[in-house]
């Protein structure tokens, strides 16, 4: 995750840098029944190189702007709603910021 703010002041509100992707996945110690089932099915199909599968979710979120406040909200909503800290962890990525 990068925190570059160089473009923040001039970027228009639809800039790609306002788009975040939140990846939510099970913590390593939680067994993922869906991933296990997918892996077994792949093995049946002959894909014997896929030894393990872990399934997860991602959310594409467009923020109003790329202010610190928006980032703060994103982090908070990821913690409180998108992921359940009892079983899951999350990671925020900024695809639009990678190119700058």
């Amino acid at each position, binding site marked *: 995750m990068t925190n570059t703010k160089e473009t923040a002041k001039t970027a228009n509100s639809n800039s790609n840098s306002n788009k975040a992707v939140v990846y939510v996945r*099970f913590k390593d*110690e*939680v*067994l993922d*029944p*869906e991933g296990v*089932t997918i892996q077994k099915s792949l093995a049946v199909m002959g894909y014997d190189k896929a030894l393990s599968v872990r399934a997860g979710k991602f959310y594409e979120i467009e923020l109003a702007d790329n202010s610190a406040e928006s980032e703060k909200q994103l982090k908070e909503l990821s913690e409180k*709603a*998108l992921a*359940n800290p*009892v*079983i899951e962890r999350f990671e925020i990525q900024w695809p639009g910021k990678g190119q700058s």
Partner: protein
Amino acid sequence: MRVAVITFPGSNSDHDSYSAVKYCLQEEVDYIWHQDTDLSGYDCVILPGGFSYGDYLRSGAIARFSPIVSAVQKFVADGGFALGICNGFQVLTESAILPGALIRNRSIKFLGQWAYLRVENNTTPFTTRYQRHQVIRVPIAHGEGNFYVADGQLAEIEDNNRVVFRYCDKEGVVNDATNPNGSRNSIAGIVNAGGNVLGMMPHPERAADAILGSDDGLLLFESLRDSINKRAGEKTSGTVSAA
């Protein structure tokens, strides 16, 4: 005894819970809409089964943010009784009223079938009419009933006798083969530290009359009534309520 049955958009077992209280137990019961916030005058809240808010994000995750759940949090903090059944259990874990989480069944399949449960703790306000280690027959109907909790908290739940029901077979044998969904330690239902909140995946309200195939669940509602009456008696006689 007055019971509030919460209706979320997507609840589908609210009518079953309502009927169990009204017709099987013959006590007062009202539906309470998820936008409401007033639980005054009620002795017990039931969070029913179903698919609240389509179970988007995770089962029970969005319901957690509805106005009534804030009211339920306050209600149980003040010692009120709450029973979360199936999706209601998921709402209780999502809102951290109960520990752990309910994840996808080990088999990935939605399980709609009869289950045998062994009563592990018959001293909770919900289970006094059962014998310890009594085997009861109650249906389950869930895709995400696989109870997960991390090791430390699991030990805490076990050590404090907070496991109320475990999945078993007809003879009461608890092992991996008699565990339908992969729940840790075959846990089917737990209480909070105060003992006034019970969350369980199986449906006692669907086994509250012999005509439904089992009335084993009725004892749970009768136990609850005993507990409410006992508490009312204590209040009238001036003794301090246990809660």
